[in-house]
């Protein structure tokens, strides 16, 4: 009698396993084309048939929110591309690419920042490719010298402050002012989570001034002392709030902190603030969003050709110009730069700080680990 019980239970388990395998796979496949068909305009569908090679590309990005992914899918369809965009945070995209390295799912990656790009290169996750025709139009020093990625969008990472509370003369000129000048103690924001791209660019911008091969993790003692003070005199960010929320909140002392250039423009609009930003003599770090090919795609000839065609198209001055108009980005392509917002263009005229991104990429995790363990309250 136990036999029946056992058999039935086993059958139930098997059934459940099979059921999920079966019901799950086709369902989305059925839904997906339907959804696309309703969204895409009829002429786009026709265009797909005439223009496209029919090869589907999987694109990973951290720059797909606010409808960017949908815009890209539709816009690309007009040119005959079939793209599936997977959007997630920069760190998550990095981890996925590392985790899937043995059998990559993505064909093309765009977005991210120089630190992550260099980490991916060192892990052999990207494959170098011949420069697309627009590569020469990109501001100098932003493309990867070895051809692993080419820049499409740039963001200056600045120290922004509330110009209603500080005049340009009173405001800090560079990051070290924050801890060296007592007037700024307790009124600037420091991040609690060190995983964000902007935060890591700021830390890289500070620590790379103190590189010393003999120091701990390649940084001199002076450098670590500076970072310690930076965190000691700052106000730890409240989680789930952004700098501008704290700026407009009269109960909070915070009036300055790190911000990316398009953020300055957007948040000023949203919160009705007027921002000023420090213009350091050494320049500012730039978060470079690039576009690269995932190692493995070169083994599939049709895919490889299509991926290259996609890169050639997406990075062009025309598309990056449209992208900038639509989403307020600052194109790395100088021919498209006029399409960007004037304030942002002004911020992005600050020269780029000279940073060895390969060194940063190799060390940033350890630096952040040390800071989290030793210098954060």
């Amino acid at each position, binding site marked *: 009698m136990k036999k029946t019980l056992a058999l039935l239970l086993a059958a139930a388990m098997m059934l459940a396993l099979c059921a999920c395998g079966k019901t799950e796979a086709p369902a989305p496949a059925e839904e997906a084309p339907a959804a696309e068909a309703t969204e895409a305009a009829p002429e786009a569908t026709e265009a797909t048939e005439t223009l496209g090679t029919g090869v589907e590309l999987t694109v990973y990005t951290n720059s797909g929110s606010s409808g960017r992914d949908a815009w890209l899918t539709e816009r690309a369809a007009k040119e005959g591309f079939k793209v599936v965009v997977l959007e997630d945070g920069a760190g998550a995209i990095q981890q996925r690419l590392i985790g899937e390295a043995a059998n990559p*799912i993505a064909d093309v990656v765009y977005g991210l920042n120089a630190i992550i790009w260099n980490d991916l290169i060192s892990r052999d996750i990207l494959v170098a490719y011949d420069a697309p025709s627009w590569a020469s139009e990109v501001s100098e020093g932003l493309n990867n010298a070895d051809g692993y990625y080419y820049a499409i969008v740039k963001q200056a990472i600045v120290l922004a402050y509330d110009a209603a509370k500080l005049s340009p003369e009173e405001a800090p000129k560079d990051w070290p002012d924050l801890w060296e000048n007592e007037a700024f103690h307790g009124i600037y924001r420091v991040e609690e989570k060190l995983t964000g791209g902007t935060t890591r660019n700021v830390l890289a911008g500070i620590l790379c001034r103190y590189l010393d091969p003999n120091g701990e993790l390649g940084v001199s003692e002076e450098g670590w002392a500076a970072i310690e003070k930076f965190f000691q005199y700052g106000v730890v960010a409240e989680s789930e709030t952004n700098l501008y929320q704290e700026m407009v909140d009269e109960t909070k002392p915070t009036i300055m902190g790190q911000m990316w250039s398009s953020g300055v423009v957007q948040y000023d609009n949203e919160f009705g603030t007027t921002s000023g930003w420090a213009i350091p003599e050494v320049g500012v770090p730039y978060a470079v969003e690039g576009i690269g090919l995932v190692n493995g795609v070169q083994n599939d000839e049709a895919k490889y050709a299509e991926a290259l065609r996609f890169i050639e198209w997406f990075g062009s001055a025309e598309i990056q110009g449209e992208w900038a108009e639509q989403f307020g980005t600052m194109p790395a392509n100088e021919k498209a730069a006029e399409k960007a917002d004037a304030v942002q263009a002004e911020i992005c005229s600050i020269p780029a700080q000279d940073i060895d991104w390969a060194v940063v990429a190799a060390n940033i995790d350890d630096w952040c680990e040390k800071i989290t363990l030793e210098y954060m309250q």
Partner: protein
Amino acid sequence: MKAKLSRFWKDLTPGRALIAVLFVWFIMTCIIVPIVHLLGTIFLADGSFSLEPIHKLMKSKKAMNSLRNSFILGPTLSLSVGIVGIFLVLVTEYFDIKGANILRLGYMTTLLYGGIILVSGYKFIYGSNGFLTNALIRIFPSFNRNWFQGYWAVLFVMTFSCTSNHMIFLRNAMRAVDFQTVEAARNMGANQWTILRRVVLPVLLPSLFAVTILTFITGLSAMSAPLLVGGTQFQTINPMIKTFADSTNSKDLAALLSLVLGMATMVLLYIMTQIEKRGHYMSVSKVKTRIVKQKINNPVVNVIVHILAYVLFAIYVVPVVLIVLFSFTSSKNIATRTLDFGSLSLDNYRYLLSASSNYRPFIVSIVYSVLAAVLISVIIVAACRIIQKRKDTLVAGVLNYSLMIPWLLPTTLVALALMLLYNQHHWYMFNRVLTGTMIIMLIGYVVIKLPFSLRMTKAAFFSLDNALEDASRNLGAKGWYTFRRVVFPAILPTVMAVAALNINSLLGDYDMSAFLYHPINPTLGVKVRSLTEDLTNANSTALTFVYAVLMMIISGIVLFLVYGRGSQDNTQSK
């Protein structure tokens, strides 16, 4: 020995062998191999094991403080949640309190939402710019705005958010109390307090133990409450684990810290199991009668209990009401906490439901959560039956603890473990690469919810009256028939409750989804994250509130399907 062995072979029917094979395969390929493989990659990254991570952690004041805080929060939270939870169950199920049905609905709101949404709701009221804080400042201008911060704030928020398990499992147990025992005690002259302490409470003990341990674990691994209201004084270890787990090179620290928490959890579970073995107090009556609600005799106590019950009701309900109301406003209103009834509009909802990319994640998450919950139920019921039948054998022990293993690691690392192993083909996974398929996230969802489900379902199996099963067999019923008609109906409420809780908590999952979701099927958690980090959409905060409300509605429907019918049965039986 020989006899034992021959019995073993006699017992080993083809069906059993199949079940055994399935379990061994599942536990090895979905739990043990991925996790061992992951730990190998992180700890032996340079080819040899190093004590370096331990030194790093010992040296860090912050890490040690966080660890200490977690171990302070665990026990104190068990205590405070225990007190509140028992009070809630007594008020709604045992004592005669005016408006108990409405109170119950209010107390159950924590089942609808949790984590970050709930803490944000509390912050809306008590935070430095919250409603209550502002009101207090109007009365006492010198009042400290940042009063709601640190240990007490964390304890307060978590005490009220962690009573969900009490409201489900302790309530189920309370309904199993035999009223005849209460009456008998009263006839023998016992007063209300004595009856409560000596008659009612002992019956609740198995469930109470189980939920207390769960609360302890929740306290140890607290995440959103310390982050949002802990301030710099009271940070716990889990946010730190999460940070390190998200960082490509610091995974050794994340794994080490979570192993410390995991070991503590395992010790607790071991103690639990030992206590469970000591036996249970159970009504010997075979014809139980349902509890008749008790009026509190002492008038003063009665009034106090009523007041407390309604104060608690307000604490539970106000955050929910605020979240719902603010979902009809703009982000700016949310940031400034101004509620203007004239400006409420459906715009957010209209926006959200206008594009399929906005509501499709709901469908994806619902499908995944339901499938996962069903699979978990099948696995866990089978496992519990084996553990119950083979009590005190090695098989039961191994099965029990191996299903608990996922508790040793944070979700992020479990996801990574699956991803890192199955990005290549292995014979034991039928030579298939799982990354990039739809199935891998389902496996992940199932694996992370196994420990909780096993813990709660086992408690139900243990409080089962063996005599019922014996009676069924004596009447000639076969094993499967007995299970189906006698055992299963008795544990069904718990199985359903566990499934409902699993569905509700998987609905908003981000940690697992982030690594494993299929490109064309983003889940709700992924969508909400992308919204909260959305820079160009001025109304993103408001939209996250809308998602929260929609999630609450789905959770509400799920709970109604489980409990709505249950309560109808009750009214009929009355």
